[in-house]
């Protein structure tokens, strides 16, 4: 058992603040998902954790011991990158064996561990091939195997699946989750995709502009984003946001859309709010009596294979509606979509969450 602790870590590069007062405490045997858009500071944070970069100010502690200035070579970490990084002149076998040989393990033991790890990642038949003879997915499996075989106390993955086709990504995600569940290391997995964070589960650390915006069990963060920014980062498609003014049990948008707020929403304070609703909580069909109908013009129907994302325009407001199944809708068509008032998020002036839908399942038992 060990812990990784970051105490008020800042990192400046030139004049730019890449990490801004990061305070985190990570425990072994757990998976942490760093979620944030490009340039949110995910890679910078991973590099500080690994010891590739030194924080400008602040401390890094492993197992209570200060390792802030210790070089990466003298730390027990493994890292997997976006690019498929393997030794091009080594076979898959030698690639996986390389960290063990560096440690000076005996031959038989190296062989045993290499074969075990290759089996976990389903690349046993490829052990004698060179990286150039593998597909992208197989190359990344090899890189992941090399990181796993080291049995480092800190395993860092920087968007490892981003360069793979989506079907491969889908398969590897599920496999990786199962693999990590059996590890005793601290696993940190950086991604830009909310879906990937949800598949990975564990703990989410949502980042934006070099700061930790929120951290907690992944599902809990998903269901209760602490601010509009977290909600925007942790939603794909991005959560629909509308500025409203609440007065007399009604929410009014500047464009004149009126949403009656009944039931448990009746006690909301008066005044200005930013209203958020996830695309999957909007529907092309009426699902309940309380649903509010909004008429709009179809801008584009994006079809993902098993879902349709309909981009609507209504009085200069853009909405995205997620509907299961494939629904070809012509651009420019007039159509209605429905909003369930029980699924609304309310964010205050500063963007902080004031009210989350009460109907959400919060048994984060997964």
């Amino acid at each position: 058992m060990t812990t990784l602790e970051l105490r008020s870590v800042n990192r400046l590069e030139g004049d730019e603040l890449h990490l801004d007062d990061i305070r985190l405490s990570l425990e072994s045997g757990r998976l942490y998902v760093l979620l944030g858009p490009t340039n949110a500071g995910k890679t910078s944070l991973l590099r500080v954790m690994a010891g590739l970069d030194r924080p400008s100010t602040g401390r890094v502690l492993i197992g209570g011991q200060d390792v802030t200035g210790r070089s990466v070579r003298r730390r027990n970490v493994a890292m997997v990158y976006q690019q498929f990084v393997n030794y091009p002149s080594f076979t898959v076998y030698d690639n996986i064996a390389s960290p063990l040989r560096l440690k000076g393990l005996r031959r038989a033991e190296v062989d045993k561990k290499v074969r075990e790890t290759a089996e976990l990642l389903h690349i046993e038949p490829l052990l004698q091939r060179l990286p150039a003879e593998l597909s992208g997915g197989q190359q990344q499996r090899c890189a992941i195997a090399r990181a796993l075989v080291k049995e480092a106390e800190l395993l860092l993955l920087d968007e490892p699946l981003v360069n793979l086709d989506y079907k491969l990504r889908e398969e590897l995600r599920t496999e990786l989750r199962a693999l990590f569940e059996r590890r005793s290391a601290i696993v940190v997995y950086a991604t830009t995709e909310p879906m990937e964070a949800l598949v990975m589960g564990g703990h989410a650390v949502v980042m934006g502009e070099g700061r930790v915006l929120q951290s907690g069990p992944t599902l809990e963060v998903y269901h209760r984003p602490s601010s509009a920014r977290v909600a925007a980062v942790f939603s794909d498609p991005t959560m629909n946001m509308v500025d409203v003014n609440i007065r007399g049990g009604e929410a009014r948008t500047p464009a004149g859309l009126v949403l009656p707020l009944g039931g448990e929403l009746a006690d909301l304070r008066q005044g200005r709010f930013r209203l958020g609703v996830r695309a999957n909580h909007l529907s092309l069909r009426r699902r309940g009596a309380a649903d509010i109908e909004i008429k709009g013009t179809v801008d584009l129907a994006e079809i993902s294979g098993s879902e349709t994302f309909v981009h609507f325009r209504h009085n200069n407001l853009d909405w995205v509606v997620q509907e299961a199944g494939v629904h070809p809708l012509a651009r420019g068509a007039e159509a209605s979509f429905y909003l369930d008032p029980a699924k609304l998020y309310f964010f205050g002036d500063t963007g902080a969450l004031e009210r989350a839908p009460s109907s959400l399942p919060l048994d984060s038992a997964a």
Partner: protein
Amino acid sequence: MARIEFQRLAHSYLADPVAPADWALKELDFAWEDGGAYALLGPSGCGKSTLLNIISGLLRPSQGRVLYDGKDVTGLSPAARNIAQVFQFPVIYDTMTVAENLAFPLRNRRMPRAEVRKRVAEALEMLELQPVQNRRAAGLTADQKQKISMGRGLVRDDVAAILFDEPLTVIDPHLKWQLRRKLKEVHERFHHTLVYVTHDQNEALTFADKVVVMYEGEVVQLGTPQELFERPAHRFVGYFIGSPGMNFMGCHLVEDGLGIDGTELVLYGHWAELARRHAKSRLAIGIRPEFLDISPTPRDDAVPTRLMGVQDLGNFKLVTVRLGPHEVVAKLPEDAPVPTDEAHLVFQPEWTRLYADDRLVG
């Protein structure tokens, strides 16, 4: 603009192909209507690039003919075919301005100046490139460069088709949908025949009216996005389209029904008749995770299964159950009750499909 037709078209990179695997493109025979938006979809190595190169004229097929509006163009060079192409990585003329880039194909064809100016202005307006029209193309962002590539096809009125070869590869994710919308808009306004090659289902299904799914050198389905989702013509389409893909279970003919391998479960009704017709083939039942229900309590129409795992993905849940030797995934809405130990699987018969030797039979 043209209707594109393939007659007994096939290609092998080998001089002397024997085995089916020697053919990069197995024999195909179909036509794309004039003014349609088509997508060629498949994983890498499925033959879609080979077909693209045959359409554009970079590659001469080993067998068969390509017709544009009934005219045989099989032996013609890309330039002689009047096609335009947008490549994976932006291809622009660095030293020219944006407007000069768009004018280039017209000037090469000695079009009168006034006409060039009119057409370029129209394309600039359509692609929202007026603000940068006098900037050097080299300094622009990737999405603007791809628009320029597209523009060089749009300005011409003699193009038979515009081909897109994975055009969004280098585009920032958050700009992708805007470019997709722009493509749609362009298609609605100009009605060019557009052919879009990609491995990304999202791009193909959003862009195209009709999608050609390719697998191991073969066209396994040509259909609308809805057809690909609801009636996959081949097991590969079921697997490849949709996330997660379709569930398949091997099955066999029993006396008056269709028995699922390794279980006591028998589907009655018209299935027996279908199965009898294909008795010699390898049979499998296919059903999408979206069309399976899981009930925590026993029901008349449900089969008891063993619960393997529940994955809560926020806006939906994936429940994996074991039915005999088969692992089956069901996709449930976010507020559906989660089974804890008992899971009863409900098939929706209208969404259950039967495959014989990987092909849809009912």
